[in-house]
């Protein structure tokens, strides 16, 4: 039996959940994967209260509501994308989603990242944040108000010179295998008026390109670019971004093996990034 590539979509009946579904659709179209749309309900632990709080009638009611929400969510999934929906119980939403990736052998978790009420394009909400600290699989973060385009035309991969960039490139090779999509490798450089530009970035991108071209199985063009700015945010803004683009970044080496931990640069990228970001765990086991 062949394993079908699939992505866990972290759904809740809010705009965040909708954004997650939209990004799930965009990614599913790019790589022909299926979606597992999951709604996680809080599992009652034994709460010390005067009256019993864990009762089946209550659980039945929220489970039914959850199923209604999922039924509504399925309406947004277009005919060309295969999706199933699941009500799960777990101590916390992030735990439930990570359990789901194990059950479904999923390749990625897709989540609406924005926190409500803040104007930044990307401010990490609590579920996304928990996933970024604990997920064993890449986490795709949908920006506020995201809607899927017909297809993704370019994938940008941001990398630094630190150890671990090969792992990120390996996963880029895998993701782009057989696809007709433009690839762009960028490094972000913080420059200020006093310190001159460090020439290392161009050399590094050359190494990256050689490494990738030796392994690539995709058909689109491959380009490189150095983005500069007084801050990481400004460097990100200096690049051109398309509506139908997604970005990849590796996780920090601070994370324990096979777990994501978003580094400071990646974290600051998020503040000004207008496109979805996939965070790949790059620390080697």
């Amino acid at each position: 039996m062949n394993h079908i590539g699939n992505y866990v979509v972290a759904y809740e009946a809010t705009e965040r959940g909708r954004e997650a579904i939209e990004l799930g659709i965009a990614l599913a179209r790019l790589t022909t994967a299926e979606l597992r749309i999951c709604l996680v309900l809080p599992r009652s632990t034994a709460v010390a209260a005067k009256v019993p709080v864990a009762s089946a009638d209550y659980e039945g009611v929220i489970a039914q509501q959850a199923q209604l929400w999922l039924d509504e969510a399925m309406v947004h999934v277009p005919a060309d994308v295969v999706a199933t929906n699941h009500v799960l119980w777990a101590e916390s939403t992030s735990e439930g989603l990570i359990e789901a990736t194990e059950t479904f052998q999923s390749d990625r978790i897709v989540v609406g990242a924005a926190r409500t009420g803040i104007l930044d394009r990307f401010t990490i909400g609590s579920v996304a944040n928990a996933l970024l600290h604990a997920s064993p699989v890449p986490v795709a973060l949908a920006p506020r108000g995201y809607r899927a385009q017909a297809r993704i035309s370019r994938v940008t991969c941001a990398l630094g010179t630190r150890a671990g960039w090969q792992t990120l490139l390996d996963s880029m090779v895998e993701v782009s295998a057989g696809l007709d999509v433009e690839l762009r490798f960028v490094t972000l450089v913080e420059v200020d008026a006093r310190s001159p530009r460090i020439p290392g970035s161009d050399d590094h991108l050359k190494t990256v390109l050689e490494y990738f071209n030796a392994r690539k199985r995709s058909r689109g063009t491959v380009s490189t670019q150095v983005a500069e700015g007084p801050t990481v945010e400004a460097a990100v803004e200096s690049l051109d971004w398309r509506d139908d683009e997604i970005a990849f970044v590796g996780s920090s080496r601070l994370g324990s093996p096979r777990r994501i931990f978003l580094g400071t640069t990646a974290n600051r990228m998020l503040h000004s990034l207008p496109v979805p970001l996939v965070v790949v765990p790059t620390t080697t086991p």
Partner: protein
Amino acid sequence: MARSKSVQKPHADAGIDFIDAAEAKSGLSSKGLSAGTVGLLGATVIGISCIAPAYTLTASLGPTAAAVGTQMPGIFLVGFLPMLLVALGYRELNNAMPDSGTSFTWATRAFGPWLGWLGGWGLIVATVVVLSNLAGVAVDFLYLALAQIFGNPAIADLAGNIPINILTCLVFMVGACYVSYRGMEATKSVQYWLVGFQLIILVWFAIAAIVHFSAGNAFDATPFSLNWFNPFAVSSFSAFAAGVSLSIFIFWGWDVTLTMNEETKNPKTTPGRAATLTVVIIFVLYLLVAISSLMFSGIGAGEFGLGNEEISGNVFAALAGPIMGPFAVLLSLAVLSSSAASLQSTFVGPARTMLAMGHYQAFPKRFAGISPRFKSPAFATVVAGVVAWAFYAVMRVISNDVLTDTILTLGMMICFYYGVTAFACVWYFRKEAFGNARSFLLRFLAPLVGGLILAVIFVTTLIDSMSPEYGSGSNIGGLGLVFILGAFLLLAGVALMLVMRAVNPAFFTGQTLKKGTSRD
């Protein structure tokens, strides 16, 4: 364990969506309970935190001593009996209808919509009243603890300032409401610490009181007598009934351990053992504290006497200083943490019952609203908080001793909804009650006797509370405030039920939740 469920389930858009057991089960990968995670020690800790002994004792010692005097230890022992009998029936219902689960659904299944509605109402009212009392105790102890920490007794007097008191209560309510709305729960280790701390400090308090007595420094030294254990030495049946009603309050929450099945490591033995261990610890603790307080304070109405109406709603606040000296702040912290934790966790109960009632259209549909983000009963939680706070604010203004009067009202309300549930058990199992000895004892005799005791206590206290002397002595037009409250809350329930029946008869005509027996 997750199970795929890709088939879209048709749902009634008419809004009548009866959840029966099979449907609820088939839709779920597993139930919401975390299975097999709680051992004997954990279950006992949960049992003790449910009862929240530090809070319970400070709120009930005064009113109980005022009602039954030195017979308090005996009354505590007797008061456990109806609780035990009803809890046995509870457990049978819980095992027979694991897909129901609250007084509301059980009573509706057994008696039909009218009594079922009132059973749910009784539970909601009792929990809302206890929320206001918990918050009130927390407010008193917050200022007391601050006064003790900063060595400035003037801070403790802030609790006596009505606007400050009511606003501080609001802060506690909003905090507890927010925490339960977010679905946050105290972790196991926090519960262990809170329980351990409460037990140690209460034992310390009891020993310190006895030491004062032995040294001849007691406020009103009252030598211990074995006769204190004789509940029948109480002066009148009215006093006896009041004492038992209060005892039901002090054990309230104990029955929760009995119904913890799935989450325990061994569902067959753990809940029973944990319930037994819990009640043994609680018995020892209550008797120790009751006896030592009596030995130190006596039952007079003097400054530190347990019969003093000024201190009776919150005796530890008054006795901590004289008994524990410089360590009194520890007792304040124990009661403050006990009541704050209980305040937060108790919010969950009425909110979920209101949500279930909203779902079955016994309450307006809005109550069934669930927060899409936190998957908690958003509207019901806010309503519980607002009503509990408003109740407290009104009581704080009209009552001489808000805490005493709410505790007495509470005892009555608990008797009411426990009684309804006990009779629901008897009626639901009526067709198999005489099948075998076990069934006869647990499904018929125990809940029947428990229910009858509660009914007698309920009626007696309701009648006695008409006297303007009852409780704190607050009265309106010559009728005792406790009676007015009890009658008002129950009649308001009946009135709201009739309004609901007129507005949306679906629940009352059995369309959303059906009546039945164990043989259906």
